[in-house]
């Protein structure tokens, strides 16, 4: 027996309190009237009598309640022999159905092994679960053999990436609610890639005994299409040829020639042969990807030469569409910002965007929803009609780039964006006469390729209160220069300086073109469309939960996995299967993506036996328990639950006894 938290035993000092109350506290007597004191004589008790313990039963009960409370905090446990608890144990059968189990007959072998364990489990309760990217329980803890066997038979291959750390975490959570010992049988191909980052993540609780059942004994060679680099969108009929680059990887393979094919909408459009070095990688380049208008389902395939055929292809989707229109609204007479923005867009974005620039007076009759995004450049005034129209456009999913410029300094806040303007910063008056960028968020798409805008000189900027907006770039004096805010389904990016080469020299710097290009892609939404994703990745469906517009997801099997309630409110969706998903987002945009299993699943290398033995031994024993199955295992059984029950009983008894004594005192 021991204590999980022995330092709480120091609370035993508190037992002195009831002793003090019962022993040392002087009894106070209320005067009692009598008819006459004629026959009475004065008598006082000796000091020892005063100090005599009163109400022994009550004192004992109070001491017991306090002692049990302290014991419960100290959390005592007893080490019980697991063998003696075998009748109360839970047999947990976990069958790995991650993507790698599709290779050969691995899943069938794992199910057979699970059946054999089920036959020999005796009368113990058992539970069947599958394990891909996370643990999924197939049954409750039951003894019914037929139901358990049916659950094992019903296990289907999955596309997820196994992670033993996730498995251990789920089992730890289960062990907290199941107080009986758990016998965990893991049926898996024991892929090395399934190991957690650190071994401590895979630690199992003391009452869990792990037994591993590896369905293969050695690593198998495997070729796979590791990755495909292709654009998600192609614009216009006369677009430049699009390159598709694929990486072919071999794991444990000899040097070999592999035939690689590019398939578009089921038709093989190009075939190449590539020499893959032993246990290495080779790159294949398809120079021209020709796809029709709309979404095309594309694949890069290699010829089958191993037992794991499911990973011989990699899917991606490409959309061909006309260039998207971008509207730039500027002040009357301002020719500089259309010039710089237009030049940057045409230089970088492969004709993806067609810029249309108008002055603010012409903007009233334009329909914002016809544009991929809108740029507001240094506007003196924003007519209320236009402001309302743009606000509605953003809420419905449109995007806006606002360059505040010098004219916004007269206002108290930025229109639509809503940020309060604290002050204007005129850096031409400070020593050095300009301010450079101080810090930037390198993970943000619009600044990721620009290296943090080196060498850009800012002469003028607005200091705004960011509020709940995301600050992406700050100047050297911490003035936010680039901010983003999500309003409704749309995005608004605020540039607190100008795009006109007057308030800064940004348009003349090399960073300006990639900034405009990436911002255009980001705001136009093209960076989110098409392309490929990995299984178990999450897809953003909407920005705000309140939006009533439903989304629609169609999985590779043509089913709609979202319920009506989820379609109306879900903000994200997990891609659980490999294949092509069709999506209609809350902002009305259509999308199609190819979903591929995690490339780590293609590496069929297995975990070394010594690592597995270490895991089975709970990380603390060098000798694997599987080798000494008859050795008695001690399991710590916590007793706090019983102590709390006992304490409740004593507390009730104490209440009853105390009320009786108090009643006696009242009569006195």
């Amino acid at each position, binding site marked *: 027996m021991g204590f999980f938290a022995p330092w709480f035993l120091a609370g035993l000092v508190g037992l002195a309190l009831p002793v003090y109350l019962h022993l040392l506290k002087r009894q106070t007597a209320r005067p009692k009237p009598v*008819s006459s004191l004629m*026959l009475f004589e004065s008598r006082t*008790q000796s000091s020892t009598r005063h100090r005599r313990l009163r109400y022994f039963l009550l004192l004992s009960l109070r001491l017991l309640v306090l002692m049990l409370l302290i014991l419960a905090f100290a959390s005592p446990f007893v080490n019980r022999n697991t063998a003696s608890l075998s009748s109360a144990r839970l047999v947990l059968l976990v069958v790995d159905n991650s993507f790698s189990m599709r290779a050969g007959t691995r899943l069938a072998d794992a199910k057979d092994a699970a059946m054999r364990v089920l036959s020999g489990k005796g009368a113990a309760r058992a539970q069947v679960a599958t394990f891909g990217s996370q643990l999924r329980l197939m049954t409750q803890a039951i003894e019914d053999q037929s139901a358990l066997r049916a659950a094992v038979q019903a296990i289907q291959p999955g596309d997820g990436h196994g992670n033993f750390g996730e498995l251990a975490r789920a089992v730890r959570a289960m062990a907290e609610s199941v107080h009986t010992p758990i016998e965990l049988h893991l049926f898996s191909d024991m892929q090395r890639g399934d190991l957690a980052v650190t071994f401590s993540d895979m630690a199992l609780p003391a009452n869990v005994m792990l037994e591993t059942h590896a369905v293969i004994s050695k690593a198998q060679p495997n070729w796979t299409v590791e990755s495909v680099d292709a654009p998600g969108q192609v614009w216009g009929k006369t677009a430049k040829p699009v390159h598709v680059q694929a990486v072919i990887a071999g794991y444990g393979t000899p040097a070999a020639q592999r035939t690689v094919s590019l398939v578009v909408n089921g038709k093989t459009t190009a075939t190449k042969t590539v020499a893959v070095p032993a246990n290495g990688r080779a790159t294949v380049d398809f120079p021209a990807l020709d796809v029709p208008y709309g979404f095309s389902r594309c694949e890069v395939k290699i010829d089958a030469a191993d037992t794991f055929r499911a990973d011989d292809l990699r899917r991606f989707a490409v959309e061909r569409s006309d260039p998207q229109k971008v509207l730039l609204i500027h002040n009357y007479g301002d020719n500089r910002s259309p010039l710089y923005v237009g030049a940057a867009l045409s230089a970088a974005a492969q004709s993806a965007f067609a810029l249309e620039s108008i002055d603010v007076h012409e903007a009233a009759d334009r329909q914002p929803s016809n544009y991929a995004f809108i740029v507001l450049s240094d506007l003196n005034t924003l007519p209320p009609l236009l402001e309302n129209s743009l606000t509605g456009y953003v809420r419905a999913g449109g995007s806006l780039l606002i360059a505040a410029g010098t004219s916004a300094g007269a206002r108290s806040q930025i229109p639509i964006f809503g940020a309060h303007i604290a002050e204007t910063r005129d850096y031409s008056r400070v020593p050095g006469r300009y301010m450079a960028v101080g810090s930037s968020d390198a993970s943000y798409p619009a600044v990721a390729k620009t290296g943090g805008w080196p060498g850009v000189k800012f002469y003028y900027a607005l200091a705004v209160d960011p509020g709940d907006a995301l600050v992406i770039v700050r100047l050297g004096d911490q003035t936010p220069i680039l901010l983003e805010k999500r309003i409704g389904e749309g995005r608004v990016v605020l540039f607190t300086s100008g795009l006109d080469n007057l308030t800064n020299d940004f348009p003349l710097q090399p960073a300006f073109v990639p900034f405009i290009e990436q911002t255009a892609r980001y705001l136009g939404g093209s960076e989110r469309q098409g392309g490929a994703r990995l299984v178990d990745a999450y897809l953003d469906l909407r920005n705000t939960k309140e939006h009533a517009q439903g989304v629609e997801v169609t999985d590779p099997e043509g089913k709609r996995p979202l319920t009506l309630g989820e379609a109306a409110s879900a903000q994200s969706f997990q891609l659980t299967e490999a294949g092509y998903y069709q999506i209609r987002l809350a902002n009305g945009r259509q999308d199609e993506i190819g979903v591929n299993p995690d490339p780590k699943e293609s590496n069929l290398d297995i975990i070394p036996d010594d690592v597995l033995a270490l895991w089975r031994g709970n990380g603390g024993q060098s000798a694997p328990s599987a080798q000494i199955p008859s050795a008695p295992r001690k399991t710590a059984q916590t007793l706090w639950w019983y102590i709390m029950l006992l304490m409740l009983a004593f507390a009730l008894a104490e209440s009853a006894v105390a009320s009786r004594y108090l009643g006696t005192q009242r009569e006195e």
Partner: protein
Amino acid sequence: MLPRFLDPAVLAGISSLELVAKTVVDGFVAGLHRSPDFGFSQEFAEYRAYTPGDDLRHIDWNVYARSERMYLKRYRGETNSPLTVLLDASNSMQFGSHPVNKMDYARYLAASLFYLAIHGQRDAAGLITFDDEIRNYIRPSTRQGQLHRLLAGLEQAEAHARTDFSKPMRYFQELVTRRGMVLIVSDFWESPESIVRTIEPLRFHGNEVVLFHVLDPEDVRPKLSGPSILVDMETQDRLEVTPDYTQTEYREKIEAHLADLRDRTQAAGMDYCLLMTDRPLDDALREYLTLRGGRN
């Protein structure tokens, strides 16, 4: 007997003192109807030889005709024996460890005695309420409405000060002029010697004197669960007393006190009756009737 109607706890629920008295006496009389002691109506008692000076009207002439000797025929005739109740209304009479305190018990007792005397015996009845002074005096009378006056006097008797027999006793002798029965109802928290010495003169006047000693059960056996401060209800003196003392020495003292009081009163030719407030009232009524019978 119907003890249910004599139980003080039951009587405490009856608000009208007359009803209490009627309930007690009727219940008591109904229980006594088979008693051989009962009956003192006008009936033949004895023959006695004539002596000169006797009233000639009482000579039995039939006997003279047969035997030529003159005998007087004597009857056990009714007599009027005025009843005076001296009720102690001191503070100590308010003590009670159960719903009926000593004062209530004394009221019930006095009311019952009045009822029995006036309705049963046609006797004159009077009341003197005292503590250390005479608080109220209703002279004995057989007039109509006397019972109501007495009951009203009992109702008004409120416990005031401390008991002091010596002071009001001087007036008792002046007020009790006719020979009769004097019943003193008190808890007698005085030394027996002093009590007897003070009351004795009443006996010398030819009265039948009875001491009804009313005590609460806790006066005899106090219950203390621990060391307690006791407060005298009359003097407000305080005393710390332990349970050990009340269970040993006090009991011996109170028993000696009661025995002493009983012995001294009987030695002085008076009757003594100890009444506990948790006991029915019939003991007191029986005592009264026994005395009343003896006076015929």
